C-alpha cells in the first residue's frame, strides 16, 4: 500500500508532537510510522536510568538533541539510599559523545556526575546549550569550569540542589567574554564566594538572561549592582538577605527591585534581616512564585510581605508563617495553586510555632485553585481532612507530613484512615499522595478503591498487615511509583501482586517484612524486573532466608541487571 504522504510530510506532522506519550502512541500505529518517528524524535525522558541503557536508546533514536535522566530513588533525598548505590551518568555521556554529536540538552535528577563527565560534555557537544543538575552529586567546581570555558552557546546552567564540592569560586571566571547566550543561571547551592566582578560582567553581557539565582555568599548590598544590569529578569534568587541596616542600602535595593518590571519569581532569602523585606514591596503585586523556605523571619513581617502578593500562585515558606499567616494568605492570595510549608525545627520535642491543621484548612477554604500541597505539621484530625477534601476536589498533589510517626487524630485519638479516605474519594484527579499519622490497613482499602488516578504514593509507619499493601497494588490502576518505609508489609502481598510491578516504574520498601527468599523468588520469576536487595549487614545468605531484608528496590527494565552495584546491593546472578 503506497502512502499518499511522503515521509517528510509525516515527519513534519510529528514534529508538532512534544509529549512523549503522544510520540509513543504514534510509533505503535505501524512499522512505517515507528521508523519515521524514531528518526525524528529529538527529546528523550528516561524516568529510571536503569530501566534502559545507552545502547538501546541510541539504537532506536539516532537523532536525539535533548535527554532527561533520573537516577536514584526518591528516598535517596532523605539518606535512605546508602552512598555509592549507583546512578552514574558517565556511561551515558560516553555513549552519547560518540553517537549524538549534536546533543544540546542534558537534564539529570539524583544522578552521580563526575568532573570527568562534565569535561566530556564540554568537549563532545559543540552545540551544547542546557545543563540542569537537580539533586545531583559527584562533581566539583572544576567540572563547572570546563563547562563554562567550552560551551560557547550555553543557555542554561542550573545546579538545582546539587551537592557540589566547592573548591573555589574561580570557575565562574571561565566564561569567556564572548559568551553572551545565557538565559538561565542557578548557582544557589554553591557555598564559595564567586568573584562578584566576574558575575556582574557575565550578567551584563547576557541580554537574554531571564533567570538568575545566586548563592548565599553574595551579600545583600551587592544585589542592586546585579539587578540594575539585568532588569529584564523574570526569576531572581537572592543571596544572604542581610546587611547592616542602612538607609542607603535600603533605598538602592528598593530602587533596583522597582526597576525589574518582569520579575515574577523570587527565592533565596537566607539569613533574612526583616528591615529589608519592604524593599521587595514594589514587585509583590507581580509575583506569581515566592520561595521563602529558607527565610527565617516571622510574623508580622512575613505575613505583611505575603499579603501584598495578590497574584501569588506558588508559595514555599517555613512554618513561621503559622496558622495566622496562612489565614492571611487565604484571604489575600486567591490565585494560589501550590503551597509548601516546611518545618523550622523538625527535631524539637515541642512545637516552636503555632502551625496546626487549622492553617491548611483555611487555605483550602480560601484558595479555590489550590491543587498542590506539601505540609509539615504536628497535629491533624479526620475532621480537618474531611473539610480539606470537600473544599478542594481539584487537589492533584497532597503530601502531608505529621512530624511524629503514628500520631493519631488528636480529638478522637483514633487513626486518620477516614480523613485520608475522604481525600482520595473526593479528589478524583489526585496523582500524588504522601501519608502520615496513625493509619491502619483501612486507609489502604480506601486508597485502592478510590485513588484510580494516583501515580505516586509514599507511605511511612503505617498499616497493620499485608492486606494494606495488597489493597494498594491491586487497586491503584495508575500507580507508577510506590515508596514504603517502616510498614509491616510482607511477602504475601508482594508476591501475589508480582505482575503489577511490571506496570510500574519502581517500588521501594525499607524496614518492612520482605524476606530474602521472596526477593529471590520474585527475581527468578519476573525476568523483566530488577530486584535489588540493599542490605548493609553483609551477605544475605549469612542469615536465615526468612529474615527480612533492610531495603528493597524493584524496577522494571529492558536492560537487564546492572553491573555497577556496590558491595551492599544484591541482584540476581545472570543465568
Amino acid at each position, binding site marked *: 500500500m503506497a502512502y499518499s504522504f511522503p515521509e517528510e510530510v509525516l515527519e513534519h506532522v510529528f514534529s508538532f508532537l512534544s509529549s512523549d506519550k503522544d510520540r509513543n502512541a504514534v510509533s505503535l500505529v505501524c512499522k512505517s510510522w515507528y521508523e519515521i518517528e524514531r528518526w525524528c524524535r529529538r527529546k528523550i525522558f528516561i524516568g529510571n536510568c536503569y530501566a534502559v541503557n545507552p545502547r538501546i536508546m541510541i539504537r532506536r533514536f539516532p537523532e536525539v538533541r535533548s535527554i532527561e535522566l533520573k537516577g536514584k530513588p526518591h528516598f535517596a533525598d532523605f539518606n535512605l539510599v546508602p552512598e555509592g548505590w549507583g546512578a552514574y551518568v558517565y556511561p551515558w555521556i560516553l555513549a552519547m559523545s560518540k553517537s549524538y554529536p549534536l546533543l544540546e540538552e542534558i537534564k539529570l535528577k539524583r544522578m552521580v556526575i563526575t568532573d570527568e563527565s562534565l569535561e566530556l560534555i564540554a568537549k563532545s557537544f559543540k552545540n551544547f546549550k542546557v545543563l540542569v543538575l537537580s539533586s545531583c552529586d559527584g562533581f566539583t567546581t572544576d567540572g563547572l569550569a570546563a563547562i563554562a570555558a567550552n560551551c560557547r552557546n550555553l543557555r542554561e546552567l542550573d545546579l538545582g540542589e546539587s551537592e557540589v564540592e566547592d573548591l573555589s569560586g574561580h570557575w565562574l571566571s571561565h566564561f569567556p567574554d564572548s559568551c553572551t547566550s545565557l538565559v538561565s543561571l542557578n548557582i544557589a547551592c554553591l557555598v564559595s564566594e564567586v568573584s562578584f566582578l566576574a558575575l556582574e560582567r557575565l550578567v551584563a553581557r547576557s541580554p537574554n538572561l531571564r533567570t538568575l539565582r545566586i548563592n548565599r555568599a553574595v551579600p545583600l548590598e551587592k544585589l542592586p549592582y546585579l539587578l540594575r544590569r539585568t532588569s529584564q529578569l523574570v526569576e531572581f534568587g537572592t543571596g544572604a538577605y542581610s546587611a547592616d541596616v542602612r538607609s542607603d542600602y535600603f533605598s538602592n535595593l528598593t530602587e533596583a527591585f522597582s526597576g525589574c518590571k518582569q520579575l515574577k519569581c523570587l527565592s533565596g532569602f537566607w539569613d533574612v534581616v526583616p528591615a529589608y523585606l519592604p524593599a521587595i514591596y514594589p514587585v509583590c503585586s507581580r509575583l506569581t512564585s515566592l520561595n521563602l523556605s*529558607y527565610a527565617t523571619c516571622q510574623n508580622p513581617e512575613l505575613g505583611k510581605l505575603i499579603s501584598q502578593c495578590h497574584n501569588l500562585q506558588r508559595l514555599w515558606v517555613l512554618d513561621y508563617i503559622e496558622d495566622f499567616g496562612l489565614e492571611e494568605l487565604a484571604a489575600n492570595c486567591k490565585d494560589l495553586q501550590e503551597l509548601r510549608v516546611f518545618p523550622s525545627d523538625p527535631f524539637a520535642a515541642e512545637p516552636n510555632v503555632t502551625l496546626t491543621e487549622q492553617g491548611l484548612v483555611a487555605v483550602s477554604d480560601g484558595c479555590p485553585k489550590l491543587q498542590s500541597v506539601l505540609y509539615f505539621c504536628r497535629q491533624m484530625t479526620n475532621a480537618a481532612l474531611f473539610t480539606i477534601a470537600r473544599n478542594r476536589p481539584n487537589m492533584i498533589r497532597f503530601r502531608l507530613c505529621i512530624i511524629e510517626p503514628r500520631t493519631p487524630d488528636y480529638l478522637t485519638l483514633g487513626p486518620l484512615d477516614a480523613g485520608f479516605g475522604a481525600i482520595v474519594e473526593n479528589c478524583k484527579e489526585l496523582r500524588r499522595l504522601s501519608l502520615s499519622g496513625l493509619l491502619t490497613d483501612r486507609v489502604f482499602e480506601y486508597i485502592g478503591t478510590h485513588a484510580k488516578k494516583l501515580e505516586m504514593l509514599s507511605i511511612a509507619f503505617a498499616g497493620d498487615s499485608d492486606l494494606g499493601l495488597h489493597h494498594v497494588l491491586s487497586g491503584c490502576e495508575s500507580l507508577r511509583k510506590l515508596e514504603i518505609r517502616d510498614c509491616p508489609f510482607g511477602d504475601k502481598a508482594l508476591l501475589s501482586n*508480582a505482575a503489577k510491578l511490571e506496570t510500574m516504574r519502581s517500588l521501594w520498601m525499607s524496614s518492612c517484612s520482605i524476606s530474602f527468599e521472596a526477593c529471590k*523468588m520474585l527475581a527468578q520469576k519476573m525476568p523483566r524486573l530488577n530486584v535489588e536487595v540493599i542490605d548493609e549487614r553483609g551477605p544475605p545468605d549469612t542469615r536465615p532466608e526468612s529474615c527480612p531484608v533492610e531495603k528493597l528496590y524493584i524496577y522494571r527494565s529492558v536492560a537487564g541487571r546492572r553491573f555497577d552495584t556496590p558491595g*551492599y546491593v544484591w541482584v540476581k546472578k545472570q543465568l
Partner: protein
Amino acid sequence: MELELGLALPNSHFVDPINSSNTTILNGNMINIDRFDDNFSQMKMKDDYSMASDGSNQVPIKTLPLLICNGQPNEDEDDDDGHQKRRTFEACYQEIKEENGVVGWPPIKSWRKKLLLNHEGGGGWNTNNIDHRNNIGIRNSMYVKVKMEGVAIGRKIDLRLYNSYQLLTNTLLQMFPRYENCNENDGSFTLLYQDKEGDWMLAGDVPWETFMETVQRIQILRNWKSGSRSTRKSSHIS
C-alpha cells in the same frame, strides 16, 4: 489469606481454584502457584539463582564489578583522597545527627536540613550544634524577651535564628520602629543581656556561642545625648 502468586494481572487470566499440587511453602505459609514452571517446586532456589554481589561484603566500599559493562569502571571517588574523605565525614555527620532519631524522618532534604542546623555561611560542618541536653540533633528554639527602655510592650525573639551580634542588632532595631534611626547617631543605644547567674552584661564581649548558652533576656537602653550614661561603655555595634 490465601493468595495466588500474581504472575499476571488479576483480570487477565482465569484463576484456578486452590489445587494442592500447585502449592508451595514460603515462610511457612501456603502460596498457590498458578501457571507456573513444573519444576518450580523442585528448584533449589539457593543454587540456581543465588544473589550475586559485585564486591566485598563487609562495608559499603566500592569495588570493581565482576562483569564489566561497556568497559567502564565504576564511578568512584577513590582517586581523589580529599573527596573520599569528605564523603566519609559527611556520612558520619549524618549518623551523628540522626542517632537519636529515625533515619530520614521527617522527610526533609539534606540540603534543607543543613540549613536548619547551620545558620553560618554554609559549608561548615559544625558538630557543636549537637545538643545533647535535649537528646536531639539540634537546638530547640530559644525564645528570649527583649525590652527596649521607654517602650511599654516587650517583644520575644527566637535567638536560634541569628548567628551573630550583627544580625541580632539589625533585627532588634527594626523591631522597635520608633527608634529605627537609632544607628544614625553614634552609640545611641546599649545592648544588655541577663546571663544565667542573673547578672546584666554588655552584649558583644563574649563569643556568640557563649552568649547563646547563657542569655536569658535582653534589654536595649537608649543613650541620651545629655550624657547621663557616661559611666557605661556604650555598645556601638554598627
